[in-house]
């Protein structure tokens, strides 16, 4: 386990995310040669099209921030067989920085996880000034930068389906916007099924990826390597739980993780994290209740470590809502404790399957 050093916590907000999660493309003279509004006979740049497919295979999302006529641009992208690669394409006349902000908000990703590719230095300068977190790449440099570390996220079996999952998420959001009733009634219409179970070896690559990618819904930021996770899974003194979610629109995959130290008398939640794709689904609270139930069955005290960063306050609120109290502070870490007398009930809108493992 790696515990961030005090100095690292002080500037816990790196200027940019470790890996690019979304590449936003300009179209004219970047993805293709020519300017669409001046001449519809634009020529695709094969090297760029190849990069679109490569990024997609790596699980990097892609979008468009370009100028011109939206419908025409979509027609051309369709004809080139590339339309499906771009989520939420923005072809309009406003500032490209605003288009990127809109994409980031819709995908619920931080701007620091974005790269923007454009041939025009003025457009790059506009985005760099308005969104300094965004990595602005000159179109002519992209091929050379494609193998740089920030564009090589760790491989995951989930990566190829990430784009489809975001498309499903779009459908969910449209359904949510169209729904006029209270939030919990909307959640009920999703028919969510959540499984919480001890992690198995086949889960560990994905667990590693979740740890790397998740900052906002992350209680401590502790990171574990694949080998460490494999040891913890085998250890009777630890519990590694993984949560998978699906609903009527499709699967979200494995979206939640808990690492619990299981002492004879005390269980300590060392790490609890949730993919930000399930941020409004109440999944973190359900995982907390599940851990509380397991702890109560073992008649142990339940604690959680919490390491505040400038991004994970929501997680602190979730612990407090679940009934945890802050009992101590050890250097930068807060120790939270739950007396297990009143465990919050599971919400009715999720069907839960909680599987016990061997050992803890």
């Amino acid at each position, binding site marked *: 386990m790696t515990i961030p050093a005090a100095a690292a916590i002080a500037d816990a907000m790196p200027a940019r995310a470790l890996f690019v999660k979304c590449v936003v493309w300009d179209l004219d003279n970047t993805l293709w040669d020519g300017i669409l509004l001046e001449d519809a006979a634009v020529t695709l740049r094969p090297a760029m099209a190849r990069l679109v497919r490569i990024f997609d295979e790596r699980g990097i999302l892609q979008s468009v921030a370009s100028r011109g006529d939206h419908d025409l641009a979509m027609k051309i992208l369709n004809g080139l067989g590339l339309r499906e690669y771009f989520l939420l394409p923005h072809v309009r006349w406003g500032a490209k920085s605003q288009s990127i902000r809109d994409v980031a908000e819709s995908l619920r990703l931080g701007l620091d996880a974005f790269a923007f590719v454009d041939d025009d230095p003025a457009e790059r300068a506009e985005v760099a000034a308005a969104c300094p977190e965004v990595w602005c790449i000159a179109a002519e440099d992209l091929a050379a930068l494609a193998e740089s570390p920030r564009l090589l996220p760790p491989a995951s079996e989930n990566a190829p389906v990430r784009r489809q999952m975001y498309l499903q998420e779009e459908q969910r959001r449209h359904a949510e916007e169209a729904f006029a*009733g209270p*939030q*919990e009634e909307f959640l009920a219409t999703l028919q969510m099924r959540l499984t919480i179970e001890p992690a198995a070896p086949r889960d560990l690559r994905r667990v590693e990826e979740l740890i790397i990618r998740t900052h906002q819904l992350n209680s401590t930021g502790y990171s574990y390597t694949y080998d460490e996770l494999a040891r913890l899974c085998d250890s009777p003194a630890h519990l590694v739980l993984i949560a998978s979610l699906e609903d009527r629109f499709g699967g979200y995959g494995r979206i939640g993780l808990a690492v619990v130290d299981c002492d004879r008398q005390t269980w300590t939640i060392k790490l609890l994290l949730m993919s930000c794709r399930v941020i409004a689904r109440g999944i973190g609270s359900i995982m907390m209740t599940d851990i509380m139930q397991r702890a109560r069955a073992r008649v142990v005290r339940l604690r959680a470590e919490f390491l505040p960063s400038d991004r994970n*306050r929501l997680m*602190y*609120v*979730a612990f407090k809502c*679940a009934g945890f109290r*802050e009992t101590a502070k050890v250097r930068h870490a807060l120790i939270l404790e739950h007396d297990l007398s009143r465990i919050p009930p599971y*919400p009715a809108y999720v069907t839960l399957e909680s599987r016990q493992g061997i050992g803890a």
Partner: protein
Amino acid sequence: MDTIRTAIRNFVARAIRTDLLSDTDDIFARGHVTSLFAMQLVMFVEHEFGITVENDDLDIANFSTIAGLANLVTRKRTVGLPESVLEGRP
């Protein structure tokens, strides 16, 4: 105080899509409101009223009712103001 309550009530009513909420009804009572909503409440009162909610203030008692939220806001806004202001003196 009344304007504080009204602003909070409007926000809550919009968020959970009900206008059948009294100042002392438990917003979280039905157990369905996610912690994301709690976080939105925190951010709303911080932004709307210019206060900073500390970890110690993040107590369910402060956040579960409109009255509790309004009390928290009033208390936080009072802290740090000179006495003359509190007593209405110039």
